[in-house]
Every structure is written in structure tokens, then in C-alpha cells.
């Protein structure tokens, strides 16, 4: 089973990298970019019988730092 885990900064947490990317887009002349937030995509290939609880545990234990990040699991 293939999973895609999207890890994103929580709303309100400052994202200096996103800000820098936004400025770079502006510098390249792209108009109308209101905001940029950068996250991570982690792809996992796991056994088909892996439970939702186990996947959630992986996310909370290692893949995301829930102090600053949210995560969302998508089954491919």
C-alpha cells in the first residue's frame, strides 16, 4: 500500500522558507503571489494490513513534529 504523507506548518507558525520563496517569485516578476507556505511530502510503501492507528503513530512519533506541524495521510 502506498501512502503520501503531507506535513505542513500549523497556521500561524512563521515559515521563513515560504517567505523567501515568495520573495524570489516576486523578484522573478511573477505577480499576484499572496503567500507561500512550504511543507514536506513523504511517500511510504507499507504492508497492506497496516492499520490507520499504526500510520497515525508513525506520523506523531517521527514524521511530523506536532508542536509546529500538521499532517495529512493520502492513500495512493
Amino acid at each position, binding site marked *: 500500500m502506498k501512502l503520501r504523507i503531507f506535513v505542513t506548518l500549523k497556521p500561524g507558525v512563521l515559515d521563513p522558507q515560504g517567505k523567501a520563496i515568495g520573495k524570489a517569485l516576486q523578484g522573478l516578476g511573477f505577480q499576484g503571489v499572496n503567500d507561500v507556505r512550504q511543507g514536506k511530502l513523504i511517500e511510504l510503501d507499507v504492508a497492506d494490513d497496516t492499520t490507520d492507528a499504526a500510520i497515525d503513530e508513525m506520523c506523531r512519533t*517521527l514524521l511530523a513534529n506536532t*508542536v*509546529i506541524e500538521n499532517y495529512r495521510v493520502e492513500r495512493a
Partner: protein
Amino acid sequence: MKTAVIVFPGSNCDRDIAVALERVTGTTPDMVWHAEPTLPEGLGLVAVPGGFSYGDYLRSGAMAARAPVMRAVADAAEGGLPVLGICNGFQVLTEAGMLPGALMRNAGIDFVCREVALTVEGARPPFFDRYQPGERIVLPVAHHDGNYTADDETLDRLEGEGRIALRYAEPVNGSARNIAGLLNERGNVLGMMPHPERRIEAAHGGVDGRRLFEAVFDLVSAA
């Protein structure tokens, strides 16, 4: 005085702290590999060193925080052993949940590598009882992820409990409330972004870091 330095793959300040500990205590520290399940007996301090463990993969300190030895470090901290995390070590301690909050990419995304002025907030033992509360000291920083973040409730609690040990005298990296160093509730676990081990003898250009180590070992040897 017996001390230990945790060694993670990719760390580059483990030797700096080992030399500093040897200079101050006169005893060579035990270098403890990250895969060890236990710590040596009879330690007076465990140091979690600076320097990009695991190449900062995933998040700074994230991989190191889950290394087998960190369970032993957490247990030892529970038992009251002084634990000092410097720079990446601070990131490891927050990722391990031994200190609250998180250290994010510096505001402005620059890697900051220079001397900074700091204020010692209190004279709390075991780390700061040889400094005056409010004393201004200078230590070097060298980091990309020193931007301390926690929710307002946590920050207020840390202030109220006197756990903000060190503050930048002026903004350095976007850190909330200019936090440069933080204690756990009991006060025996210290995480700090500046490098005290790089200011322990005159040849370093200053000795403001030395008293931190001297304080720890006096306290422990008197106990």
C-alpha cells in the same frame, strides 16, 4: 568527575565539548555512541553536542532524538542527572520531548555564525549559580535552526516558572521572547543555542562559558 558526550552520526561539535569537559574536570569524558542502550555509571553530566546530527534530515534533531541512547538520557534526567544540550543538542532535547517547544529555521533564513550578547536570566543551579542574575555575557552561535517557537500559553508558563535561562540581548534568529536557553521543570536539563564550550579559555577570546561547567561540577561533587 565522570562525564559523557553522546556521539551521533554527523555531529561535528562532540569533540569541542569533550575537550572543554576535559579541561574543566581534568577527566576525559566517555564518548557514548548513539546506538548504546545505556549510559555509564556514576556520571556527573551528560552532554548532547552541537552539529547537524544525521545531516539535519527530516528536522534538525529529529532522528537523533529517537536514537536508542536518548531513552537512557531521558531516564537519567528523570533521576536528576544534569543534561546539557548545546545547539543541535538543544534541538534534539526538544524533539525528544525533554524540553517544550521547537526550534525552527531562523527568521530571515540566514545561517547565523557570530558572537552574540546574552542575558543570564537567573542564577539557578546546577548550571547558572556562578553567574549573576541579569549578567550580560558573550558566547558564539552557529546555527540555521535556532528560532524557538512555542504557543503563548507555554511561553507564559516558562516565564512564570523561571525556566528561560538565557535570552539574546537583541534579536538574532526570530526566537520567541529572545529565548536562547531553556530549562526543564526540575532545572537539571538545559538546552541552549549558544556554545559555552567555545568560550572556556583566554585563547578562545573569552571565558564566559567556563563558569557554567564549573558550577555543574562543584554542585555535583559537593552532593
